[in-house]
């Protein structure tokens, strides 16, 4: 197990070397936070209590959204992007020379990245938002613990989806279409455009059941204490998607490996 820890630590360090990119990214997130606050404030002013959120919930949602965007990798992440590139170029063969499991290797790499980005790309916008607006924070140790678990599971769900998209390159020559599709689905169903709670009827129900909901809407609701079925069932919902996606990822990894080894790529 030591090796995967060592990999995660190196990945964390690697991302910490991109100082200017990180700083400018955090700045961009903060600017977008203010823009979104303007939009959401107008919306909740017109329709108070929309989706069961009050204005403070909506503002907190905005800053958590900006803070989770990069760490969770809603629009993709450098790590799984590089994995996709390696699959396309065939360089993935180099990874097979290593005495490590492909899935665990890339998961460790992604977790190291996510932790660094959570601290900086997550922390800075949240701090900026909290200085300007009156945001909601979890109360009590248990609530904070639930948030930590929820965010961790969100990263795992997102990793599962991104990993599967990257590995699709074993069968599809040009994965750009696949990536575009993943981007659109993720943007909408994670709650990046609007909180999923505002969507009524079956559309809302469907949106909240997708794995993308588990990457952003659900962990933010855990923070706000607004999950319809309570925090426990929210975590179980995430855990379910983690199990399905990582199991799927493992199956696809073995099939892809066999394809490389037997058919020769």
């Amino acid at each position, binding site marked *: 197990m030591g090796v995967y820890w*060592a990999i995660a630590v*190196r990945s964390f360090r690697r991302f910490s070397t991109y100082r200017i990119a990180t700083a400018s990214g955090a700045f961009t997130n903060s600017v977008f936070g203010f823009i979104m606050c303007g939009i959401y404030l107008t919306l909740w002013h017109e329709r108070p209590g929309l989706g069961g959120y009050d204005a403070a919930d909506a503002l907190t949602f905005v800053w958590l959204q900006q803070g989770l965007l990069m760490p969770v990798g809603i629009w993709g992440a450098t790590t799984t992007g590089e994995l996709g590139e390696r699959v396309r170029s065939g360089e993935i063969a*180099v990874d097979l*020379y*290593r*005495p490590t499991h492909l899935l665990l290797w890339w998961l460790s790499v992604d977790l190291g990245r996510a932790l660094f980005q959570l601290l900086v790309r997550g922390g800075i916008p949240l701090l900026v938002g909290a200085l300007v607006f009156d945001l909601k924070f979890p109360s009590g140790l248990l609530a904070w613990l639930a948030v930590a678990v929820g965010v961790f599971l969100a990263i795992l769900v997102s990793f599962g989806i991104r990993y599967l998209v990257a590995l699709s390159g074993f069968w599809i020559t040009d994965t750009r279409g696949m990536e575009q599709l993943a981007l659109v689905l993720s943007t909408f169903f994670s709650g990046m455009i609007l909180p999923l709670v505002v969507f009524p009827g079956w559309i809302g129900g469907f949106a909240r059941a997708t794995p993308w909901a588990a990457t952003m809407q659900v962990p933010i609701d855990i923070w706000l204490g607004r999950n319809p079925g309570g925090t426990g069932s929210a975590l179980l919902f995430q855990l379910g998607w983690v199990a399905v996606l990582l199991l799927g990822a493992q199956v696809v990894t073995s099939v892809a490996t066999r394809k490389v080894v037997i*058919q020769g790529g």
Partner: protein
Amino acid sequence: MPVIELADVSRAFTVTSRTGFRRTRREVRAVDGMTFSVEPGEVMGYIGPNGAGKSTTIKMLTGILVPSGGSIRVAGVDPSRHRLKLAKRIGVVFGQRTTLWWDLPLKDSFAVLQKMYDVPLARHRSNLATFVELLDLQDLLDVPVRQLSLGQRMRGDIAAALLHDPEIVYLDEPTIGLDVISKARLREFLAQVNAERRTTIILTTHDLDDIEALCTRVMVIDHGHQIFDGTLDGLKSSQSAPRTLVVDLAASLPPIEVTGATVVKVDGPRQHLTFPTSASAAPLLAQIAANYPLVDLSVSEPTIESVITQLYNSA
């Protein structure tokens, strides 16, 4: 006991080509009927033109590709069935790719490798100290890999491939793109590792100087077939590549007539003649000097390049 054994190994790929709506499938045999074995501590040069089947062979030896026929044993196991287990006992270097962490200092990559291969810490430290000294890496350990020059990065990659004391190392064009000094240094290092640790080295290269400097054995393949297996001297004498005689005459003349040699090129007053390696140059000189206005001359031995070119052409 051989550390690598191949018996009648072949590998076919299905290539689908498309013309209009018609799809045709045909089978390409990248490696065909390969049989050889390598003893521990051998340094074997594995050469052939692009597309000859070199990479395919290496992939099968490391277990990331299964053969379509025949059997392979490396370090006592079937590579494709025990890929992860075998991975701990072999080292691989690709000249055009790196396995180092691009944005991190070199030493970070080495630290991950210690964990990845479960190398006992004391052993890791002593190996690292040795390689750092031999490859002159001391000043590079704290430098991010992306800032290293190609030669420096290659030294880092070679050290990385050897840190876990592999029994076998596969080097795929390790000197590609390096300058003369870096090449010489790398060859010297590899020779030393081989001598001191009895590491078996399989080297694929287009640089025949690598072969001359390092290899006790050469295997030449073309179109998936072995066309030569033996020593470098054996390779040179196996082919009757002709020697070349270059004569400078006092004036531009039509091709001169000499018994036992043929003019292959006329370049003003300079004429190039070839004659068999087995023949002596002295009688030719006497003939030319007697019949033509000879000013200057030189004789050159067949180069290993010409030997191999001839081998490819005759295969």
